[in-house]
């Protein structure tokens, strides 16, 4: 079952590597910061000299925005999906496995969080956590970032958690699990050897999808004024490019392309990872 790496896979790893490189070393690239307004280049199309990706109608250089956005978007996505996925699947899998009161508590908690629109949640968190007593003192970006990541993590936990729970429910009734239990195998072993490998494919499928979802969710939050300030992430760039659609479409489609490449690449990487995990399942 060994999969050969194909051209799309190389592309996927290449793009993700490039994006991570931009995220880590982007600030060393000798171009103006993303916040600089280029008054003489407003509305420049892509391939203008000095502005490879063009300039939007407010004078922001899009290339610079993409580089800076890579850092924020990838950080937000990786941390909130990683953390949310880990906590969520831990809760979901154990809840479905052990059942009983623990399961109802976890399930209810998931429902409580899920039934509040994530926007309301984020707005509430920002209102409480990212406000200074002295109004004239700016809230540091890191505090806003943490608040944002927290609210997105809270959104992710029940989504992945419930999927993990549903999948575990479906699997834990299966003959080989029942058999393992009746043979006196320890719960920890059953979960890690038999349940997790079977639940993971669905989780990974959703988890990698969640990367895109989180980046886009952050865009909607920026639109409403509670995202990363300055529209500095890719999502924020898309949000602020919305009024440029008729006039400077590149301000909208360039960040969308960057985002699409990232989502497609993570999808491929997810597939490759799942291929490896599937081999474990095959050995059962």
């Amino acid at each position, binding site marked *: 079952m060994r999969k050969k790496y194909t051209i*799309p896979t190389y592309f996927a790893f290449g793009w993700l590597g490039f994006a991570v490189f931009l995220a880590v070393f982007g600030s060393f690239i000798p171009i103006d910061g993303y916040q600089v307004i280029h008054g003489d280049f407003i509305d420049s199309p892509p391939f203008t000299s000095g502005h490879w990706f063009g300039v939007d109608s407010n004078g922001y250089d899009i290339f610079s925005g993409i580089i800076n956005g890579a850092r924020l978007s990838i950080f937000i996505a990786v941390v909130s999906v990683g953390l949310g996925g880990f906590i969520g699947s831990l809760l979901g899998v154990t809840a479905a496995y052990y*059942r*009983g009161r623990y399961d*109802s508590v976890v*399930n*209810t*908690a998931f*429902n*409580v969080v*899920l*039934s*509040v*629109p*994530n*926007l*309301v949640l984020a*707005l*509430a968190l920002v209102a*409480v956590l990212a*406000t200074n007593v002295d109004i004239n003192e700016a809230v540091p970006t890191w505090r806003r970032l943490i608040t944002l990541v927290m609210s997105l993590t809270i959104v992710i936990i*029940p*989504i992945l958690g*419930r*999927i993990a729970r*549903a*999948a575990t*429910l*479906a699997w*834990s*009734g299966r003959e080989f699990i029942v058999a393992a239990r009746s043979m006196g195998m320890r719960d920890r072993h059953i979960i890690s050897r038999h349940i997790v490998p*079977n639940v993971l*494919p*669905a989780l990974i*499928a*959703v988890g990698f*999808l969640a990367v*895109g*979802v989180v*980046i*886009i969710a952050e*865009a*909607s939050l920026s*639109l*409403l004024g509670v995202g990363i300030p300055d529209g500095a992430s890719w*999502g924020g760039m*898309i*949000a602020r490019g*919305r009024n440029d*659609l*008729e006039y400077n479409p590149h301000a*909208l489609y360039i960040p*969308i392309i960057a*985002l*699409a490449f*990232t*989502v*497609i690449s993570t*999808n491929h990487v997810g597939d490759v990872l799942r291929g490896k995990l599937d081999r474990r399942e095959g050995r059962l």
Partner: protein
Amino acid sequence: MRGSFWVKRLAQLLITVFGVTFGCSLLVQLLPVSPAEILLPVGSPEERDLLTKEIGLDRGPIGYYAKWLGEFVTGDFGDIYYSGGTEEVSGRLATALPRSLLLMIYTQIVALSIAIPLGVWSAYRVGRRADKVISNTLFTMSSIPNFAIALVLVLIVGVRLQWLPTLDYQPFSAGPWEHAKHMIMPVLSLSVGLVASYTRLLRADMIATLREDYITMAASKGLSDRRVLWRHAFRPSSVTLFTSAALNMGGLIGGAIVVETIFATYGVGFEVFAAISGRQYIALQSMVAIICIFYVLFNLTIDVIAGYVDPRTRDRRINA
């Protein structure tokens, strides 16, 4: 046995609603400024005291919640406060809620009816070109925020082709076609992202199911591929799909703010956002409670459906 399952389910439902509403009422208590001060920015201290009493904020967190709950169950969802008087939240919800519910239902129907065939097909053709094309197209679509899709639709379908109106909502009573014309673009913008997510879920589960022994056996009995796919493989593979669909309910009812704003559909999402930005926290609390109730009810329905679709989960539940 069955009865106890429903009692449990109902208890869970109530606990969820209580949890959400109590959380919201705590939020009102935790505000850095007194709600009376926010609602009456130019009022006198006496007026504010009166309002504090009227809302029940002088009774402590539990007392306040009890008062709110008592009124909520009798259909008094509180008021929106203006400088000169009040407006009942229920009146606002009466116009906004049907819009949001219809928007949500149509979006789910559209998304599922596209995602199910696509998911089954790409699982059947896993690893082949069709699978890859579907998968990559969907991922590209899913990386475009719904507001961007909405704006592109407006520009092409509304402005260039002039096929559909770009603004406003028409109720069903204004004629089915009038109603549909105003719903097509918002529904499409909202469903694109869901199609990608649903297709992925179904595909992943289908692939796993198709490896099962009973599928191999069914196929070896000489049943047609179509029959095996739909009769034997689809039903047990759709649990995660329906779980995920149920999860999106709350978000679609209350979170479609930007799309609602672009098309001037103005459903619950807009009302919630208006309540947040207008600092109408009492109205917000009631609105979130309503969203929560609908979310819980839809989840219950989906659970019932899922129980019939995949009896394994139902049995597990009943035995638990």
